[in-house]
């Protein structure tokens, strides 16, 4: 059972466009992380959201945690080729358990 659904799975847009990636679940998480992964490398943490309704900004990236802490979104403004990569959302529950990952969104920004 896939507890975290990411959409879209693939997205290819032109440089300068805006985009939104979604991460949805029927489960409640204590926190949710977004990672970006380059081919052949480990995921790199972008942000952690903890509070329902929380919004965090990282330059042109805006992350939002749903009020019920079941879903999240990543919005990129004026996308650049350097934003290309695999974006993964991961939910955390209490305790030492591992993270639950979505399948990821493959993003390609064409110059």
């Amino acid at each position: 059972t896939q507890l975290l659904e990411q959409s879209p799975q693939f997205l290819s847009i032109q440089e300068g466009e805006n985009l939104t990636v979604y991460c949805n679940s029927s489960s409640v998480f204590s926190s949710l992380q977004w990672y970006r992964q380059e081919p052949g490398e480990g995921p790199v943490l972008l942000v952690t959201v903890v509070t329902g309704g929380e919004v965090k900004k990282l330059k042109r990236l805006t992350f939002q945690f749903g009020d019920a802490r079941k879903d999240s979104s990543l919005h990129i403004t004026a996308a650049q080729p350097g934003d290309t990569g695999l974006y993964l959302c991961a939910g955390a529950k209490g305790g030492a358990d591992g993270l639950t990952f979505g399948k990821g969104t493959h993003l390609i920004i064409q110059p």
Partner: protein
Amino acid sequence: SQTIHQWPATLVQPVGSPLSLECTVEGTSNPNLYWYRQAAGRGLQLLFYSVGIGQISSEVPQNLSASRPQDRQFILSSKKLLLSDSGFYLCAWRQLGARNIQYFGAGTRLSVL
């Protein structure tokens, strides 16, 4: 600052051969440690995690095992590899007492032929 090391970076092994992947963390004490496997271009599946020396929790029954012989060392092993063991293996650590924010190593690409 904390760093995490995984090796080897790539590995090609024949079916039926043993496996040993190593992960070490520097700059922290008593971290929680994790092994994940990632299918090509996909999300990560948790395999094992450890909250301390000699303490291993298995998430998915399979042909693999894990051990934690030292506080900051986590090893993934197999006695006989299967074709289905091929994949990208990632080690991660989390600071004890902190929110479940995990930091990943660079990964090991394992090809079983």
